[in-house]
């Protein structure tokens, strides 16, 4: 009863490149194609407290009737503190991930308090089967942005910071659900050729392919490098957008499909067949 590919999968080796290639041209089913994933930055938005966060919350509420949103949170300054401390104590990257996840969790819980009166729920990774239901019923759902890798996080190429944090976790949520948009809300207008906080003359980049961006090999980036690497292999998410949450209207514009902020897109042809 197996398909031809299924017969090869059952008997073959998963390290066989030709078998992996045979899985390339399979269909891509988008599970929740009307959902938007919106990541609220940790250091950039959450850590600003009322002044930074409340206008973003107001904009989320205003968009509830118009756009379905999965709201992920970043970690921020408390994660930086515990990463510093844990590195000093000699703890491995998997333990740092467990610790950093707790900070993103705190931010998600705070965001949920602020949106509680609108009936918005906070779901842990174990509850993700309910995400489509909450999106349909309430228009949005909150999650902590870290991927649930815990002790199974991988060592980075360089240094001791977990390489796959909340940018990556939110991107992978958008990819697995086949979401309509992946929008990162930070405190800059988007991508610059250097950190604009340290170099005010840094040039703004409104639109760039992920291939070009990787080739530029910038020393600093607006997004985790892991997102760019995974984006090359993604089968659903074709572009990601970065908006300034300190400027009212930018999130709404991005949800409406306008090219505000910076868009990083995949210039390669889409993979797989459409069912």
């Amino acid at each position: 009863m197996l398909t031809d590919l299924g017969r090869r999968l059952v008997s073959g080796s998963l390290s066989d490149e030709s078998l992996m290639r045979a899985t390339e041209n399979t269909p891509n089913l988008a599970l929740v194609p009307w959902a938007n994933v919106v990541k609220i930055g940790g250091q950039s938005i959450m850590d600003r407290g009322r002044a930074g966060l409340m206008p973003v919350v107001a904009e989320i509420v205003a968009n509830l009737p118009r756009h379905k949103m999965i709201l992920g949170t970043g970690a921020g300054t408390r994660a930086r503190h515990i990463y510093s401390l844990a590195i000093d104590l000699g703890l491995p990257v998997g333990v740092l991930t467990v610790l950093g996840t707790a900070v993103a969790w705190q931010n998600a819980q705070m965001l949920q308090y602020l949106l509680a009166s609108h009936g918005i729920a906070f779901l842990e990774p174990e509850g993700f089967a309910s995400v489509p239901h909450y999106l349909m019923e309430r228009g949005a759902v909150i999650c902590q942005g870290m991927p649930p890798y815990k002790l199974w996080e991988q060592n980075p190429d360089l240094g001791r910071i977990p390489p796959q944090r909340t940018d990556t976790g939110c991107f992978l949520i958008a990819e697995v659900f086949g979401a309509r948009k992946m929008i990162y809300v930070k405190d800059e207008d988007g991508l610059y050729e250097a950190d604009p906080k340290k170099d005010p003359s840094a040039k703004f980049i409104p639109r760039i392919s992920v291939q070009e961006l990787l080739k530029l090999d910038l020393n600093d980036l607006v997004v985790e490098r892991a997102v760019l690497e995974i984006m090359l292999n993604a089968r659903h998410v074709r572009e990601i957008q970065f908006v300034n949450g300190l400027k009212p209207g930018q999130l709404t514009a991005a949800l409406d499909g306008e090219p505000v902020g910076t868009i990083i897109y995949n210039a390669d042809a889409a993979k797989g067949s459409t069912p």
Partner: protein
Amino acid sequence: MSGAQHVISKLMRESLMDRRVIAGTEAPVRAILPNLNVVQIGGQSIMDRGQSAVLPVLDEILANQADYTQVIGVGPGVRARHILSVGLDLGLPTGALATLAAKSAAQNAYMVSCLLASHGFVYLEAPFIVQLLPAMLAAARGAVFNGVPPYDLWEHPPALGKIPPHGSDAGSYLVGEVFGARSVILIKDVDGVFTADPKTHPDATFIPEVKAADLIAMRLQTLPIEPVVLELLTRAKLVKSVRIINGLVPGNLTRALAGEAVGTLIRS
């Protein structure tokens, strides 16, 4: 960054994407459980063969119980291949395939834990590995876990195709690496790494020891280990080798636990 309410730390206000900042975090790592041995039982290679292959492996684990602290990872096998096939046909994304396939390994791990239960082994799901492994190893004689890492919906889409790249070899290695284990031993149904698949190429040459980077460069058509583990080994901090042994040969696990040169040792 004016406006944010910071906690003072070395990384305060820094971009964690900045290579100079990241490089500045390089420092030694401590082994949390240096006496731990991670032993992974292959799914298709051992579990799917039933008692003729599984029971001798478990007997050998028990024979070494007094001398070595062992946690047993277990792989998924043919049921995972089946659900991958159905899921691919339906167009499910890689993260959904990973979530489904991991359950097959959980079943195998649960069976192994039942067979070892009377000897004091416990089955630990991922959250309990995070919270309870040291306590369980102090109270129980060993632990069994699902070899597949809990990446679930967050599994990476692979560079080629749609099959989840992180299986039970990767998960077992990562458990060893994070705890700073004494050894990571993968039990399969082949003697180790050959220049070609020995089941179809009788003239294939055996490789007793090899560096992960060299093995990647050899671009062999098939490997008895998930290719992603080779990449993980190149970034190892604590567990700098993985040994692959043939579990159908009695005595191999005992020799591997004793640190003898059996099977193939892949080094970082």
